[in-house]
C-alpha cells in the first residue's frame, strides 16, 4: 500500500525476460542538479541579505541609500529573489533529481535542462537590475515587466516540455505522488503567469495590465495566492514526498491520504485568492467564497503535514543524528502552523484586525523561512554529499545552522505578531467619547519600532545560518573528486518495454 520513492518495479513482463544480454543501460543527469543546488544557495544568500537590508530600513530610514535602494524598490527585489530565485532553484533541483529517479529515465533533453537553468538565472539577473531601476508593474510577486514576463513564459514552456517528455519515456509505470505535485505545479504556474501578466506594452519597459480596478485586484490575488500554492506549496510537498522517506528510510505514511489530500488541495486552493481582498471594494459574494474555501483548505493542508510527520513513526530517534530530518521536521511543522494560520486569517472577523498589519508579514515568513527555507536546507544537506560523492565537511556546523535558523525564525515571527496585533488594535481603538484613541497615525508607527529591531535580529540570525551552510558546502566541494560521472543503471530490456 505505502511505497517508497524507489520501490522496485513490478511491471508486467519482467518474468518473460530471460535474456541477461539484453540490458537497458541509462544514466541520470546530475550535473544539472548540482547547478541548481549551487544557484539555490547563492540566491538564497542574496535574497535574504536584501531582506535584512530592508528590515533595517524600516526602523532606521537613513539606510535607504538614495534613489535606487529605497525600501519601495528593494522590497519587490527581496520577495522575488526569495520566491523565484531561492525557492525556485530549490524546487528545480528537487524536480530534476527526483523525477529522473522516479521515472528511471534521464531528463529527455539535456539542452533543455541547460536552457532552463541558464534562462532562469538570466531572468533573476534581469529582475535584480530592473527592480532597483524602478521598472515594475506594481503587482505583488508579478512585478517584472513584460519582456521578462515573456522570457519566463519561454523558459517555463521549455521546462514543461522537458519534464513531460521525460514522463512519456519513463521506465517506471506508476507515477509516484511527488510527480503528481510536480505536474500540478508546472500546469498551474503556466496558467497563473499568463493569466495575470496579460498587459499592453507602452514602451520596452512599461506596460498597463489589461484588467482594471476590481477585476485587476481579483486576477492579481488569484495569481498571488496561488503562487504561494503552486510555487511554494505543491512543489515543496513533492520535495517532501521524495526526500523525507529517503532521509528517514521509511515508506510514506499513507497512500490513500496522499490521493485524498492531493486532489482536494489542487481543487480548493484556486478558490481562496479573494481572501486577500476581504472588506475591500470587491463584491461580497467573491470574498465570502474565498473565505469559505480557505477554511476548507485547512484539511488538505494538514493532510500533507500528517503524511509527512507520520512517515517518521518509529524513526523519531533518527532525528538525534540527522540534521536533514531535523530540518524537515521543523519545516513540516511550520507548514502545519502556517496552513492553520492562513485559514484563520482569511476569516473576516480576524482579517478585519490583521489585514494591512505586520501579522501578514509574520505569516508569510513562517511559510517562507520555516517551510520553504528549512525544507530546502534539509534537501541540500541530503543532496550535497551524494551529488559530490563527499561526506559533509562539518555536521556540527550544519547542526549550528539548524539551531541558529530556528531561533532566527522564532524571533522574527514573534516580533511581527506583536507588531501586527499592536497596529491592528491601535488603529481601531476609540476613547469613551467615541473618538479615535490614536488619531495621529504616527503614534501607531512609532509604537512598533522596537519590534522592527527584534525582527532585524531574527532575520540576521537566519541569514547567519545560511552563511554557515555556504561555508559548509564550499568546504565539502573543495574536498570533492574532480571527476563526477553521471550514475549509470541497467534494467532488463523486457521491463523497459513494458
Amino acid at each position, binding site marked *: 500500500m505505502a511505497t517508497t520513492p524507489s520501490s522496485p518495479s513490478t511491471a508486467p513482463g519482467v518474468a518473460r525476460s530471460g535474456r541477461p544480454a539484453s540490458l537497458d543501460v541509462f544514466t541520470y543527469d546530475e550535473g544539472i542538479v548540482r547547478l541548481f543546488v549551487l544557484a539555490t544557495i547563492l540566491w538564497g544568500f542574496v535574497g535574504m541579505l536584501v531582506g535584512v537590508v530592508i528590515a533595517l530600513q524600516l526602523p532606521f*530610514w537613513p539606510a535607504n541609500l538614495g534613489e535606487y535602494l529605497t525600501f519601495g524598490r528593494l522590497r*519587490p527585489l527581496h520577495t522575488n529573489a526569495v520566491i523565484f530565485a531561492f525557492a525556485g532553484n530549490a524546487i528545480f533541483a528537487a524536480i530534476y533529481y527526483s523525477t529522473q529517479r522516479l521515472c528511471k529515465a534521464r531528463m529527455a533533453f539535456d539542452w533543455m535542462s541547460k536552457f532552463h537553468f541558464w534562462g532562469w538565472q538570466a531572468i533573476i539577473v534581469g529582475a535584480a537590475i530592473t527592480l532597483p531601476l524602478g521598472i515594475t508593474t*506594481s503587482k505583488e510577486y508579478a512585478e517584472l515587466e513584460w519582456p521578462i514576463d515573456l522570457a519566463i513564459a519561454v523558459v517555463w514552456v521549455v521546462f514543461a516540455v522537458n519534464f513531460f517528455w521525460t514522463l512519456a519515456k519513463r521506465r517506471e509505470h506508476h507515477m509516484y505522488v511527488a510527480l503528481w505535485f510536480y*505536474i500540478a505545479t508546472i500546469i498551474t504556474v503556466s496558467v497563473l503567469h499568463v493569466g495575470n501578466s496579460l498587459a499592453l506594452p507602452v514602451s520596452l519597459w512599461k506596460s498597463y495590465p489589461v484588467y482594471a*480596478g476590481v477585476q485587476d485586484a481579483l486576477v492579481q490575488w488569484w495569481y498571488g495566492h496561488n503562487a504561494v500554492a503552486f510555487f511554494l506549496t505543491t512543489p515543496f510537498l513533492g520535495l517532501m514526498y521524495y526526500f523525507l522517506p529517503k532521509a528517514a528510510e521509511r515508506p510514506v505514511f499513507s497512500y490513500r491520504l496522499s490521493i485524498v489530500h492531493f486532489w482536494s488541495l489542487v481543487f480548493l486552493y484556486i478558490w481562496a485568492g479573494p481572501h486577500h481582498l476581504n472588506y475591500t471594494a470587491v463584491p461580497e459574494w467573491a470574498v465570502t467564497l474565498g473565505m469559505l474555501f480557505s477554511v476548507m483548505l485547512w484539511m488538505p493542508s494538514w493532510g500533507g503535514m500528517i503524511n509527512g510527520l507520520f512517515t517518521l513513526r518509529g524513526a523519531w530517534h533518527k532525528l538525534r543524528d540527522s540534521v536533514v530530518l531535523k530540518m524537515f521536521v521543523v519545516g513540516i511543522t511550520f507548514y502545519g502552523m502556517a496552513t492553520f494560520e492562513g485559514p484563520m486569517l482569511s476569516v473576516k472577523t480576524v482579517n478585519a484586525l490583521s489585514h494591512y498589519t505586520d501579522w501578514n508579514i509574520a505569516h508569510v515568513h513562517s511559510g517562507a523561512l520555516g517551510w520553504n527555507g528549512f525544507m530546502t536546507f534539509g534537501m541540500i544537506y541530503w543532496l550535497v554529499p551524494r551529488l559530490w560523492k563527499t561526506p559533509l565537511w562539518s555536521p556540527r556546523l550544519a547542526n549550528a545552522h539548524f539551531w541558529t535558523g530556528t531561533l532566527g525564525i522564532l524571533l522574527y515571527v514573534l516580533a511581527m505578531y506583536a507588531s501586527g496585533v499592536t497596529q491592528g488594535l491601535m488603529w481601531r481603538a476609540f476613547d469613551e467619547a467615541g473618538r479615535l484613541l490614536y488619531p495621529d497615525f504616527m503614534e501607531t*508607527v512609532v509604537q512598533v519600532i522596537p519590534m522592527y529591531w527584534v525582527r532585524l535580529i531574527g532575520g540576521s540570525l537566519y541569514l547567519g545560518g545560511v552563511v554557515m551552510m555556504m561555508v559548509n558546502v564550499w568546504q565539502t566541494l573543495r574536498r570533492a573528486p574532480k571527476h563526477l560521472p553521471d550514475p549509470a543503471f541497467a534494467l532488463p530490456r523486457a521491463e523497459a518495454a513494458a
Partner: protein
Amino acid sequence: MKRFLDSNGRHRRLEGWPLVFTLLTTGAILLGGLVEFLPMVLIQDNVTQIATVRPWTPLELAGRDLYIREGCNNCHSQMVRPFRNEIERYGEYSKPGETVYEHPFLWGSKRTGPDLARVGGKYPNLWHVRHMEDPRSTSPRSIMPPYDWMLRKPLKTRDLPTKLARLRTLGVPYTDDEIARAEELARAQAAEIAADVAATGGPEGLADKEIVALVAYLQSLGTGLTAPAGEAARGEAPEAPLATQ
C-alpha cells in the same frame, strides 16, 4: 471509494496515464478561477458605475506611474474598508466604481504608512513637496525615506500620448483631443501646481520636475465621489472629500 483508493484500485491505474492525470489536474485548477472571475467580466452590475469618476489627467497619470516606479504601494494602501474607525481616520470607504480606470489597481496590502485613498485635497500642494523632499519636516518621527530627487529630476512627458492611447485601447475613455494634446495639458497643469507651490512660499521652478506630477496624482486620490466631472479634468485642485479628523 475503497475501489478507487486501494493500492491496486482505480487511482493506481490513473497513475500510469500522465496525460489523463495532467488533464484532470488542469480541470481541477481551472474551475475555481473561472467561477470566481467570469461573473466579474460578464455581469456589469457587479461594479456600479459612478458618474463623477473620471480618468486621470495626463499629468496625474504621469504622477501615478512615478508612484508605481517608487513602489509607494509597498507601504501605503489605497483602500478604505467600511469600518467606523477607518472612515473616521481616512474618510468615506472605497467603492468599486472608483477604481474602474485603474490599470493596474493600487489598493496595496500593507499599511506601514497611512492609507492614501482619500488623501487628495487633504493637504496643500506645498505640504506634499516638503514631505517628499524630507518627510520629517512635515511629519516628525516619520520612517519614510526622502524622495528629494523628484524635486530635481526632469518630468518626462514625451510618452504621455502613447500611454493615453494604450489606456483608451483598454477602455479608458480618453478623447482624440486629449491624446493629441496630452503633453500640452500636462505642462499646463504642472505650471499651475508649480505656481501654487511658489506662491505659498515653496521652491521656485518645479514646473518641469517629477514632483509636480506626483503631487497632481496624490491630490486627485479619492476625489472621484465628489469632483464635478469636467471641472477637475481641467486640473483644478478638487475640494476635500468627506471631512476627516
